[in-house]
């Protein structure tokens, strides 16, 4: 393992000076707080005997400023987020702990910081503190240290948690530490090419489109030239080349406009079609990528906001292709074309035309962003105002009940005032910026009229040229102003593209087995060995889980809610991968079993039943689309759903969710059971599958299930403990561990957790029975 991959050289040296060679190192973690809470980087290095802590040396005098060249030189040397003004790029050994003297180390998470704590001589002791971003790394470090201390158990997997935190190119911190992407340095051109590469089949239309755009914007250059140089100088002037040919001149101008118009229409049509198709392809790619991602990917993000983001990113790209790219091409052709024409006609005047441009650029760069910010603030304050209105109207009963109308009016007023203030600022800025902008452009106009007019009088240039010049001014200033926008637009689009590709490229799916083991017929022996699992770093949900389930056994999982029962079955069905330890089926690690074989033979019925839009039949056959009608009916009969389905007007073809055909919780549940029955899995998992069903129906399903579980391994989680009478063994979960194992009778005799649960439940039942 390469522990040095992102450790500064001076730290490596210090470690070697201590006489520890790279081969002896078992793990390194870095932290960023000292025992006083100051930002001081430290490296914790563990070999087989001790933990060594190297911390940055304090500067004898803090720097007032980091001199740029020092900064550049030392940039790579400093660990992101450390205080480079008070500490040097040097470390010293400050503490050393012998592993022998330590008990287990553990990471504790507080609201604002993290600490690694251990016990020395029966006294709890903080080994180090760090800020919140370091959790993953410290946890991995603790795992290694514990392994070394206890000298047993499984060797922890390689620590992949330590990552660069700062963009090596520009030194910016990565905004999202778990995602080493610097929005400043993402290679926008490559990204753009990649977006384009999505569309090889549209090469033809795109080339056609670009050509059309260039032609039509070149043609757009004609009118001022026609009206100035041609009509005034050559047609209306006596002695001109085309003197008196006014009709022809008009005709040509009209012809130009017509051609330009038809090209525009053609371009618009191709553009819409091509853009729509590109986005269609892109969305399809995103969706299939998202299907592949693991559940933990979704756990970390809110599904709703993920969907929104993907949609808005795709929309961004669509706008960019549909409007941004043409805009860019047209503007650049215009700028270049106009400049060339002007230079060709009169270079002296042309130079004058450029005089106001710096001012225009200054305003667009300096002032307009302020305006955009104000606009977005107006949007936000408005949204807040709306939500206040919404709140107090939806909650009007509460407001009235407590007689708080005045308080609501006050709340509204304060938000209203904020909106008013922003609106005022926008008004003020608007009424300053745009007239000034107009004035500056007018200034250009005036300069041209003044100098050009002088030239015309002195005969150095023609009146037509002057008219043409003034006509082109707007065609130059406008695009220049707009091009400043396009840079931002481009950046934000490439950001969207980046996020989209990140999903497409994401490797956050459970790793595929290198050599998948085909298991056409699973027997159903399930073994868990030292399983540990957590959804979030630092909050273990399952610990030290060990069990051995024989083929055909029926196992009940019981325990208080939140004990980790559902999590355990998620692991058995490999919806998540264990953090350490292993789960095997028929002796094969489930990580190595071919995905189809696993999912075809492990069936789950969950408490919450999700039904897709579609008919009942389609929903039941979801996991086995080629099932025959007879198989489907047999499955629903076992699940006790046949009768209620037959009573629906459209029978098995009733579309769920369509008005009037919403199903009750119990009915949905039975469809889910039918779904699992149809799959005929070798390992069946029922997670509170009968929780939403009334007792009578449960009895029926219970009998059906009893037939069903015959001959296959079954895991049942049930809230009602009486449901588990038939189980061969019960595993009692408590706080992420299996605390008791045995049959109902054995466990009752033990008078432990299970016995307590059972008696409380029976008492509660009796009470409700008496009370009801």
């Amino acid at each position: 393992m390469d522990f040095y991959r992102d450790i500064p050289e001076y730290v490596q040296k210090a470690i070697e000076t201590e006489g520890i060679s790279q081969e002896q190192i078992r793990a390194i973690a870095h932290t960023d707080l000292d025992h006083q809470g100051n930002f001081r980087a430290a490296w914790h290095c563990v070999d087989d005997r001790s933990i060594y802590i190297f911390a940055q040396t304090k500067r004898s005098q803090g720097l007032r400023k980091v001199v740029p060249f020092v900064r550049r030189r030392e940039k790579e040397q400093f660990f992101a987020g450390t205080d480079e003004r008070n500490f040097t790029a040097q470390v010293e050994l400050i503490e050393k702990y012998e592993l022998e003297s330590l008990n287990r180390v553990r990471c504790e998470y507080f609201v604002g910081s993290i600490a690694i704590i251990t016990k020395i001589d029966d006294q709890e002791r903080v080994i180090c503190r760090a800020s919140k971003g370091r959790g993953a790394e410290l946890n991995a470090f603790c795992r290694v240290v514990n392994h070394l201390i206890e000298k047993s158990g499984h060797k922890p997997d390689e620590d992949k948690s330590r990552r660069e935190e700062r963009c090596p190119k520009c030194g910016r911190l990565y905004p999202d530490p778990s995602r080493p992407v610097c929005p400043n340095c993402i290679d926008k051109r490559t990204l753009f090419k990649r977006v384009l590469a999505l569309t090889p089949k549209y090469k033809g239309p795109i080339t056609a489109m670009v050509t059309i755009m260039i032609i039509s914007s070149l043609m757009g250059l004609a009118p001022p030239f026609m009206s100035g140089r041609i009509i005034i100088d050559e047609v209306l002037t006596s002695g001109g080349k085309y003197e008196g040919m006014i009709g022809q001149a008009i005709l040509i101008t009209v012809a130009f406009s017509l051609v330009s118009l038809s090209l525009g229409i053609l371009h618009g049509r191709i553009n819409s079609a091509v853009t729509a198709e590109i986005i269609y392809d892109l969305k399809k790619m995103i969706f299939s990528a998202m299907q592949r991602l693991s559940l933990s990917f979704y756990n970390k993000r809110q599904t709703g906001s993920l969907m929104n983001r993907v949609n808005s990113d795709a929309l961004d790209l669509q706008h960019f292709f549909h409007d941004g790219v043409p805009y860019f091409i047209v503007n650049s052709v215009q700028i270049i074309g106009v400049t060339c024409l002007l230079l060709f006609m009169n270079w002296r005047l042309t130079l004058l035309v450029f005089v106001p441009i710096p001012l225009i650029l200054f305003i667009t760069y300096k002032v307009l962003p302020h305006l955009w910010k104000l606009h977005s603030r107006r949007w936000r304050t408005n949204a807040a105002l709306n939500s206040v209105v919404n709140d107090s109207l939806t909650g009007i009963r509460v407001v009235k009940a407590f007689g708080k109308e005045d308080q609501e009016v006050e709340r509204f007023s304060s938000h209203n005032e904020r909106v008013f203030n922003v609106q005022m600022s926008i008004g003020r800025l608007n009424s300053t910026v745009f007239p000034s902008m107009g004035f500056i452009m007018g200034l250009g106009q005036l300069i041209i009229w003044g100098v050009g007019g002088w030239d015309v009088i002195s005969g150095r240039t023609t009146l037509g040229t002057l008219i043409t010049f003034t006509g082109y001014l707007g065609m130059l200033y406008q695009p220049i102003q707009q091009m400043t926008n396009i840079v931002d637009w481009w950046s934000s689009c490439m950001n969207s593209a980046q996020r989209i590709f990140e999903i497409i490229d994401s490797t956050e799916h459970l790793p595929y087995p290198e050599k998948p083991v085909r298991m056409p017929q699973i027997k159903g022996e399930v073994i868990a060995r030292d399983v540990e699992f957590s959804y979030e770093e630092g909050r273990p949900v399952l610990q030290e889980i060990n069990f051995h389930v024989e083929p055909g056994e029926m196992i009940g999982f019981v325990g208080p809610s939140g004990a980790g029962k559902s999590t355990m079955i998620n692991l058995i069905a490999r919806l998540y991968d264990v953090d350490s330890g292993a789960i095997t089926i028929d002796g094969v690690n489930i990580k190595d079993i071919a995905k189809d074989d696993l999912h075809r033979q492990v069936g789950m019925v969950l408490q919450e039943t999700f039904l897709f839009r579609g008919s009942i039949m389609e929903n039941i056959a979801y996991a086995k689309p080629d099932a025959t009608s007879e198989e489907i009916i047999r499955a629903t009969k076992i699940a006790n759903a046949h009768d209620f389905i037959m009573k629906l007007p459209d029978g098995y073809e009733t579309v769920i969710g369509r008005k009037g055909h919403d199903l009750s919780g119990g009915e949905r549940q039975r469809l889910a059971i039918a779904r699992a029955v149809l799959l005929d899995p070798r390992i069946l998992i029922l997670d509170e599958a009968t929780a939403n069903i009334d007792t009578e129906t449960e009895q029926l399903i219970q009998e059906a299930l009893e037939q069903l579980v015959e001959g296959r391994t079954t895991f049942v989680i049930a809230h009602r403990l009486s449901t588990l009478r038939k189980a061969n063994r019960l595993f009692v979960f408590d706080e992420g561990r299996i605390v008791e194992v045995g049959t109902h009778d054995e466990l009752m005799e033990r008078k432990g957790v299970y016995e307590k649960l059972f008696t409380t439940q029976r008492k509660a039942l009796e009470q409700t029975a008496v009370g009801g």
Partner: protein
Amino acid sequence: MEVEGLSALTNINYLDPNEAVFATTEGGLLSLQLGDKYYGKVDLYQAFPFSLEYQYISVRDEKGEEIGIIRDLTEFPPQSQKAIRTELSWRYYAPRITRVLDLKDEFGHLYWDVETDHGFRKFVTRAREEGINPIADWRLLIIDMTGNRYEIEDYRRLDAKSLRFLEPYI
């Protein structure tokens, strides 16, 4: 004793400032001697972390069971107070920003470069609401992308340059 009777009634078990003795252990943790019972490590939880930092602090043992509540820290003797404050400063670690050296709004994130009472630091927050949370009239809680917290106690008291950076966001 009267107080105790009352708290038994309302079920809030306030710790008696004279009976409960807090200390910082050699290992850097908080210990509590309550009568003849000794806790080698207790955890603190603030009920109102923003408005009443030093009142209504729940003291819990290692299993998370509440031992009692500190009604008002200032009622405790100085040594206990000091130990509790130290522990709180770790649990609710949030350096106070004294100067904003740079604040850039780029790509939908804010890039900060600040001086705090614990030294200089650079970090990134989300732009807008998620990054900068007003928790009282002039007080801001800034939460970076990894969940670290920083506090600006009263932004009116910052120097002009810092304020200029912050201005668009408050």
